[in-house]
Protein backbone atom coordinates (compact mmCIF):
# COMPACT_ATOMS: atom_id res chain seq x y z
CA UNK A 1 0.00 0.00 0.00
CA UNK A 2 3.06 2.24 -0.13
CA UNK A 3 2.25 2.98 -3.78
CA UNK A 4 -0.08 5.76 -2.69
CA UNK A 5 1.47 8.77 -1.02
CA UNK A 6 -1.20 8.68 1.63
CA UNK A 7 -0.60 9.61 5.25
CA UNK A 8 -2.17 6.53 6.77
CA UNK A 9 -1.29 3.02 7.85
CA UNK A 10 -3.07 0.07 6.25
CA UNK A 11 -4.22 -1.32 9.61
CA UNK A 12 -5.75 2.01 10.71
CA UNK A 13 -7.77 2.31 7.52
CA UNK A 14 -8.73 -1.37 7.61
CA UNK A 15 -10.14 -0.96 11.13
CA UNK A 16 -11.84 2.31 10.19
CA UNK A 17 -13.58 0.54 7.31
CA UNK A 18 -14.68 -2.30 9.55
CA UNK A 19 -15.99 0.15 12.16
CA UNK A 20 -17.94 2.11 9.56
CA UNK A 21 -19.56 -1.12 8.39
CA UNK A 22 -20.77 -2.32 11.82
CA UNK A 23 -24.36 -1.05 11.27
CA UNK A 24 -24.62 -2.66 7.83
CA UNK A 25 -22.97 -5.85 9.11
CA UNK A 26 -25.97 -6.23 11.39
CA UNK A 27 -28.33 -6.19 8.41
CA UNK A 28 -26.00 -8.63 6.61
CA UNK A 29 -26.33 -10.87 9.68
CA UNK A 30 -30.15 -10.84 9.50
CA UNK A 31 -30.10 -11.80 5.82
CA UNK A 32 -27.39 -14.37 6.55
CA UNK A 33 -29.51 -16.06 9.17
CA UNK A 34 -32.46 -16.35 6.78
CA UNK A 35 -30.22 -17.66 3.99
CA UNK A 36 -28.77 -20.32 6.28
CA UNK A 37 -32.23 -21.57 7.31
CA UNK A 38 -33.38 -21.66 3.67
CA UNK A 39 -30.16 -23.36 2.52
CA UNK A 40 -30.87 -26.22 4.90
CA UNK A 41 -34.38 -26.50 3.46
CA UNK A 42 -33.07 -26.43 -0.11
CA UNK A 43 -30.92 -29.48 0.62
CA UNK A 44 -27.41 -27.99 0.61
CA UNK A 45 -24.87 -29.90 2.70
CA UNK A 46 -22.78 -28.12 5.30
CA UNK A 47 -19.66 -28.16 3.12
CA UNK A 48 -21.69 -26.76 0.20
CA UNK A 49 -22.92 -23.91 2.41
CA UNK A 50 -19.33 -23.12 3.45
CA UNK A 51 -18.10 -23.26 -0.16
CA UNK A 52 -20.91 -21.15 -1.59
CA UNK A 53 -20.85 -18.45 1.10
CA UNK A 54 -17.07 -18.40 1.22
CA UNK A 55 -16.35 -18.36 -2.51
CA UNK A 56 -19.41 -16.83 -4.18
CA UNK A 57 -20.07 -14.35 -1.35
CA UNK A 58 -22.98 -12.52 -3.04
CA UNK A 59 -26.29 -12.41 -1.17
CA UNK A 60 -28.85 -11.89 -3.95
CA UNK A 61 -27.22 -14.46 -6.24
CA UNK A 62 -27.09 -16.98 -3.39
CA UNK A 63 -30.79 -16.47 -2.60
CA UNK A 64 -31.70 -17.09 -6.24
CA UNK A 65 -29.43 -20.15 -6.27
CA UNK A 66 -31.42 -21.70 -3.40
CA UNK A 67 -34.56 -21.54 -5.52
CA UNK A 68 -32.78 -23.39 -8.35
CA UNK A 69 -30.97 -25.91 -6.14
CA UNK A 70 -31.96 -29.59 -6.08
CA UNK A 71 -30.79 -32.13 -3.50
CA UNK A 72 -30.31 -34.82 -6.18
CA UNK A 73 -27.03 -34.16 -8.02
CA UNK A 74 -28.19 -35.61 -11.34
CA UNK A 75 -30.92 -32.98 -11.66
CA UNK A 76 -28.85 -30.04 -10.37
CA UNK A 77 -29.25 -27.26 -12.98
CA UNK A 78 -25.55 -26.30 -13.23
CA UNK A 79 -26.00 -24.09 -16.31
CA UNK A 80 -28.95 -22.07 -14.96
CA UNK A 81 -27.20 -21.72 -11.57
CA UNK A 82 -24.08 -20.16 -13.14
CA UNK A 83 -26.09 -18.08 -15.61
CA UNK A 84 -28.35 -16.77 -12.84
CA UNK A 85 -25.32 -15.80 -10.72
CA UNK A 86 -23.90 -13.94 -13.73
CA UNK A 87 -27.12 -12.06 -14.50
CA UNK A 88 -27.96 -11.18 -10.89
CA UNK A 89 -24.40 -9.94 -10.31
CA UNK A 90 -24.07 -7.94 -13.55
CA UNK A 91 -24.98 -4.77 -11.64
CA UNK A 92 -21.62 -5.05 -9.83
CA UNK A 93 -20.04 -3.73 -13.05
CA UNK A 94 -21.50 -0.35 -12.14
CA UNK A 95 -20.57 -0.56 -8.45
CA UNK A 96 -16.93 -1.60 -8.75
CA UNK A 97 -16.31 0.86 -11.61
CA UNK A 98 -16.94 3.73 -9.19
CA UNK A 99 -14.08 2.45 -6.96
CA UNK A 100 -11.47 3.11 -9.69
CA UNK A 101 -10.16 6.34 -8.07
CA UNK A 102 -8.97 4.35 -5.02
CA UNK A 103 -6.43 2.44 -7.10
CA UNK A 104 -3.13 3.58 -8.60
CA UNK A 105 -2.68 3.98 -12.35
CA UNK A 106 -0.58 0.82 -12.60
CA UNK A 107 -0.97 -2.62 -11.05
CA UNK A 108 -4.73 -2.60 -11.46
CA UNK A 109 -4.77 -6.37 -11.98
CA UNK A 110 -3.69 -6.91 -8.40
CA UNK A 111 -6.46 -4.57 -7.30
CA UNK A 112 -8.93 -6.66 -9.29
CA UNK A 113 -8.45 -9.49 -6.78
CA UNK A 114 -9.59 -7.24 -3.95
CA UNK A 115 -12.94 -6.87 -5.74
CA UNK A 116 -13.80 -10.27 -4.27
CA UNK A 117 -14.57 -8.54 -0.95
CA UNK A 118 -16.89 -5.91 -2.48
CA UNK A 119 -20.52 -6.17 -1.37
CA UNK A 120 -23.41 -3.71 -1.70
CA UNK A 121 -22.87 -2.76 1.94
CA UNK A 122 -19.16 -1.98 2.14
CA UNK A 123 -19.32 -0.46 -1.35
CA UNK A 124 -21.91 2.05 -0.13
CA UNK A 125 -19.87 2.94 2.99
CA UNK A 126 -16.67 3.29 0.93
CA UNK A 127 -18.28 5.53 -1.67
CA UNK A 128 -19.71 7.68 1.12
CA UNK A 129 -16.23 7.93 2.66
CA UNK A 130 -14.77 8.76 -0.78
CA UNK A 131 -17.19 11.67 -1.05
CA UNK A 132 -15.84 12.96 2.26
CA UNK A 133 -12.30 12.52 0.94
CA UNK A 134 -11.24 9.83 3.43
CA UNK A 135 -11.22 6.41 1.87
CA UNK A 136 -8.78 3.80 0.63
CA UNK A 137 -8.42 0.23 -0.52
CA UNK A 138 -7.74 -0.76 3.09
CA UNK A 139 -11.01 0.91 4.20
CA UNK A 140 -12.87 -1.11 1.53
CA UNK A 141 -11.17 -4.33 2.62
CA UNK A 142 -11.93 -3.74 6.31
CA UNK A 143 -15.64 -3.37 5.62
CA UNK A 144 -15.57 -6.35 3.26
CA UNK A 145 -13.84 -8.59 5.79
CA UNK A 146 -16.41 -7.71 8.45
CA UNK A 147 -19.28 -8.38 6.01
CA UNK A 148 -17.69 -11.73 5.06
CA UNK A 149 -17.36 -12.83 8.69
CA UNK A 150 -20.91 -11.68 9.46
CA UNK A 151 -22.33 -13.48 6.38
CA UNK A 152 -20.47 -16.75 6.92
CA UNK A 153 -21.10 -17.03 10.66
CA UNK A 154 -24.83 -16.27 10.46
CA UNK A 155 -25.22 -18.65 7.49
CA UNK A 156 -23.85 -21.42 9.69
CA UNK A 157 -26.07 -20.47 12.64
CA UNK A 158 -29.11 -20.39 10.35
CA UNK A 159 -28.13 -23.74 8.88
CA UNK A 160 -27.99 -25.19 12.41
CA UNK A 161 -31.42 -23.76 13.24
CA UNK A 162 -32.83 -25.12 9.98
CA UNK A 163 -31.70 -28.65 10.75
CA UNK A 164 -33.60 -28.58 14.06
CA UNK A 165 -36.86 -28.58 12.08
CA UNK A 166 -37.79 -31.99 10.68
CA UNK A 167 -40.85 -31.30 8.51
CA UNK A 168 -40.75 -27.70 7.19
CA UNK A 169 -44.14 -27.78 5.43
CA UNK A 170 -45.91 -28.72 8.66
CA UNK A 171 -44.97 -25.36 10.17
CA UNK A 172 -45.60 -23.32 7.05
CA UNK A 173 -41.85 -23.03 6.47
CA UNK A 174 -42.25 -24.04 2.82
CA UNK A 175 -43.58 -20.50 2.43
CA UNK A 176 -40.37 -19.00 3.88
CA UNK A 177 -38.81 -18.84 0.39
CA UNK A 178 -41.63 -16.89 -1.21
CA UNK A 179 -41.96 -14.62 1.84
CA UNK A 180 -38.22 -13.87 1.85
CA UNK A 181 -38.08 -13.13 -1.88
CA UNK A 182 -41.16 -10.93 -1.65
CA UNK A 183 -39.56 -8.91 1.18
CA UNK A 184 -36.24 -8.69 -0.70
CA UNK A 185 -38.15 -7.43 -3.74
CA UNK A 186 -40.06 -4.79 -1.76
CA UNK A 187 -36.74 -3.65 -0.25
CA UNK A 188 -35.53 -2.84 -3.76
CA UNK A 189 -38.40 -0.45 -4.47
CA UNK A 190 -36.97 2.89 -5.58
CA UNK A 191 -40.04 4.53 -7.08
CA UNK A 192 -42.57 4.41 -9.90
CA UNK A 193 -39.85 3.56 -12.39
CA UNK A 194 -39.93 0.04 -10.94
CA UNK A 195 -43.60 -0.64 -11.82
CA UNK A 196 -43.07 -1.48 -15.50
CA UNK A 197 -39.98 -3.71 -15.12
CA UNK A 198 -41.48 -5.62 -12.19
CA UNK A 199 -44.82 -6.10 -13.94
CA UNK A 200 -43.21 -7.23 -17.20
CA UNK A 201 -40.90 -9.56 -15.29
CA UNK A 202 -43.79 -11.06 -13.29
CA UNK A 203 -46.09 -11.60 -16.29
CA UNK A 204 -43.30 -12.97 -18.52
CA UNK A 205 -42.23 -15.34 -15.75
CA UNK A 206 -45.80 -16.56 -15.15
CA UNK A 207 -46.30 -17.18 -18.89
CA UNK A 208 -42.90 -18.89 -19.25
CA UNK A 209 -43.50 -21.13 -16.23
CA UNK A 210 -46.67 -22.40 -17.91
CA UNK A 211 -44.84 -23.64 -20.99
CA UNK A 212 -41.22 -24.32 -20.01
CA UNK A 213 -40.07 -26.87 -17.43
CA UNK A 214 -37.51 -26.00 -14.80
CA UNK A 215 -36.33 -22.61 -13.67
CA UNK A 216 -35.92 -20.73 -16.96
CA UNK A 217 -38.85 -18.44 -16.14
CA UNK A 218 -36.61 -16.64 -13.61
CA UNK A 219 -34.00 -15.74 -16.23
CA UNK A 220 -36.51 -15.04 -19.02
CA UNK A 221 -38.65 -12.84 -16.75
CA UNK A 222 -35.62 -11.10 -15.24
CA UNK A 223 -34.10 -10.22 -18.60
CA UNK A 224 -37.44 -9.14 -20.14
CA UNK A 225 -38.38 -7.02 -17.12
CA UNK A 226 -35.02 -5.27 -16.82
CA UNK A 227 -34.94 -4.51 -20.56
CA UNK A 228 -38.47 -3.07 -20.34
CA UNK A 229 -37.42 -0.92 -17.37
CA UNK A 230 -34.39 0.39 -19.27
CA UNK A 231 -36.52 1.13 -22.37
CA UNK A 232 -39.03 3.14 -20.35
CA UNK A 233 -36.27 5.02 -18.53
CA UNK A 234 -34.37 5.93 -21.69
CA UNK A 235 -37.54 6.98 -23.57
CA UNK A 236 -38.64 9.16 -20.67
CA UNK A 237 -35.26 10.91 -20.63
CA UNK A 238 -35.43 11.40 -24.41
CA UNK A 239 -38.89 12.88 -23.99
CA UNK A 240 -37.74 15.37 -21.39
CA UNK A 241 -34.65 16.38 -23.31
Amino acid sequence: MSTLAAPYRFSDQFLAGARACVPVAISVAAYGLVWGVLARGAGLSLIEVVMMSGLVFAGSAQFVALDLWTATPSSLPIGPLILAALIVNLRYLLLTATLRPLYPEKGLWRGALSMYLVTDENWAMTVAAMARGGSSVAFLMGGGALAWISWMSTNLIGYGLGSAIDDPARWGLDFAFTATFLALLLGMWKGRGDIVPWLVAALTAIATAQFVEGSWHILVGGVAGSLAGALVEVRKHAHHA
Partner: protein
Amino acid sequence: MHTTPEAVIAILGMALVTIAVKASGLLLADRLPRDGFAAAWLRHIPGAVLAALVAPALVTGSPAEVVAAVATGGIFILTRNLFAAMAAGVATVYLVRLLIAG
Protein backbone atom coordinates in the same frame (compact mmCIF):
# COMPACT_ATOMS: atom_id res chain seq x y z
CA MET B 1 -19.74 -33.42 5.32
CA HIS B 2 -20.57 -34.56 1.82
CA THR B 3 -20.86 -33.01 -1.59
CA THR B 4 -20.96 -34.05 -5.23
CA PRO B 5 -18.92 -33.13 -8.33
CA GLU B 6 -22.04 -31.45 -9.79
CA ALA B 7 -22.43 -29.21 -6.74
CA VAL B 8 -18.72 -28.31 -6.68
CA ILE B 9 -18.78 -27.40 -10.40
CA ALA B 10 -21.91 -25.28 -9.94
CA ILE B 11 -20.50 -23.43 -6.92
CA LEU B 12 -17.07 -22.86 -8.50
CA GLY B 13 -18.79 -21.64 -11.67
CA MET B 14 -20.93 -19.22 -9.67
CA ALA B 15 -17.83 -17.99 -7.79
CA LEU B 16 -15.87 -17.48 -11.03
CA VAL B 17 -18.54 -15.47 -12.84
CA THR B 18 -19.12 -13.38 -9.70
CA ILE B 19 -15.47 -12.37 -9.22
CA ALA B 20 -15.15 -11.89 -13.02
CA VAL B 21 -18.04 -9.41 -13.05
CA LYS B 22 -16.79 -7.54 -9.97
CA ALA B 23 -13.21 -7.35 -11.32
CA SER B 24 -14.40 -6.31 -14.79
CA GLY B 25 -16.13 -3.27 -13.34
CA LEU B 26 -12.84 -2.00 -11.92
CA LEU B 27 -10.71 -3.00 -14.92
CA LEU B 28 -13.10 -1.49 -17.48
CA ALA B 29 -14.03 1.48 -15.30
CA ASP B 30 -12.93 4.08 -17.83
CA ARG B 31 -14.89 2.47 -20.68
CA LEU B 32 -18.22 1.53 -19.06
CA PRO B 33 -21.39 3.50 -19.80
CA ARG B 34 -22.38 5.69 -16.86
CA ASP B 35 -25.84 6.43 -18.18
CA GLY B 36 -28.06 5.52 -21.10
CA PHE B 37 -29.68 2.23 -21.98
CA ALA B 38 -27.00 -0.25 -20.83
CA ALA B 39 -26.55 1.36 -17.41
CA ALA B 40 -30.33 1.54 -16.87
CA TRP B 41 -30.64 -2.12 -17.88
CA LEU B 42 -27.99 -3.23 -15.35
CA ARG B 43 -29.69 -1.25 -12.58
CA HIS B 44 -33.07 -2.91 -13.22
CA ILE B 45 -31.81 -6.51 -13.26
CA PRO B 46 -31.99 -7.47 -9.54
CA GLY B 47 -35.57 -6.26 -9.02
CA ALA B 48 -36.78 -7.89 -12.23
CA VAL B 49 -35.14 -11.23 -11.36
CA LEU B 50 -36.80 -11.24 -7.93
CA ALA B 51 -40.20 -10.29 -9.40
CA ALA B 52 -39.85 -13.15 -11.90
CA LEU B 53 -39.04 -15.50 -9.04
CA VAL B 54 -41.93 -14.51 -6.76
CA ALA B 55 -44.79 -14.06 -9.25
CA PRO B 56 -45.30 -17.67 -10.43
CA ALA B 57 -45.20 -18.95 -6.82
CA LEU B 58 -47.97 -16.53 -5.87
CA VAL B 59 -50.35 -17.16 -8.79
CA THR B 60 -50.10 -20.94 -8.43
CA GLY B 61 -50.51 -20.83 -4.62
CA SER B 62 -53.63 -21.50 -2.59
CA PRO B 63 -55.64 -18.70 -0.87
CA ALA B 64 -53.48 -19.30 2.23
CA GLU B 65 -50.37 -18.29 0.28
CA VAL B 66 -52.04 -15.17 -1.12
CA VAL B 67 -53.16 -14.02 2.35
CA ALA B 68 -49.68 -14.76 3.72
CA ALA B 69 -48.07 -12.78 0.89
CA VAL B 70 -50.17 -9.75 1.81
CA ALA B 71 -49.13 -10.17 5.47
CA THR B 72 -45.46 -10.50 4.48
CA GLY B 73 -45.60 -7.36 2.34
CA GLY B 74 -47.48 -5.39 4.97
CA ILE B 75 -45.07 -6.27 7.78
CA PHE B 76 -42.05 -5.54 5.60
CA ILE B 77 -43.36 -2.10 4.59
CA LEU B 78 -44.11 -1.31 8.26
CA THR B 79 -40.89 -2.64 9.83
CA ARG B 80 -38.37 -2.79 6.92
CA ASN B 81 -37.20 -5.96 8.62
CA LEU B 82 -36.62 -9.04 6.47
CA PHE B 83 -36.75 -11.48 9.35
CA ALA B 84 -40.00 -10.07 10.78
CA ALA B 85 -41.61 -10.13 7.33
CA MET B 86 -40.61 -13.74 6.72
CA ALA B 87 -41.81 -14.81 10.17
CA ALA B 88 -45.15 -13.05 9.61
CA GLY B 89 -45.57 -14.80 6.27
CA VAL B 90 -44.77 -18.23 7.69
CA ALA B 91 -47.04 -17.73 10.73
CA THR B 92 -49.91 -16.53 8.51
CA VAL B 93 -49.67 -19.41 6.07
CA TYR B 94 -49.59 -21.85 9.03
CA LEU B 95 -52.68 -20.32 10.66
CA VAL B 96 -54.73 -19.93 7.49
CA ARG B 97 -54.01 -23.53 6.50
CA LEU B 98 -55.20 -24.64 9.95
CA LEU B 99 -58.40 -22.59 9.53
CA ILE B 100 -59.09 -23.95 6.04
CA ALA B 101 -58.40 -27.55 7.07
CA GLY B 102 -60.49 -27.20 10.23
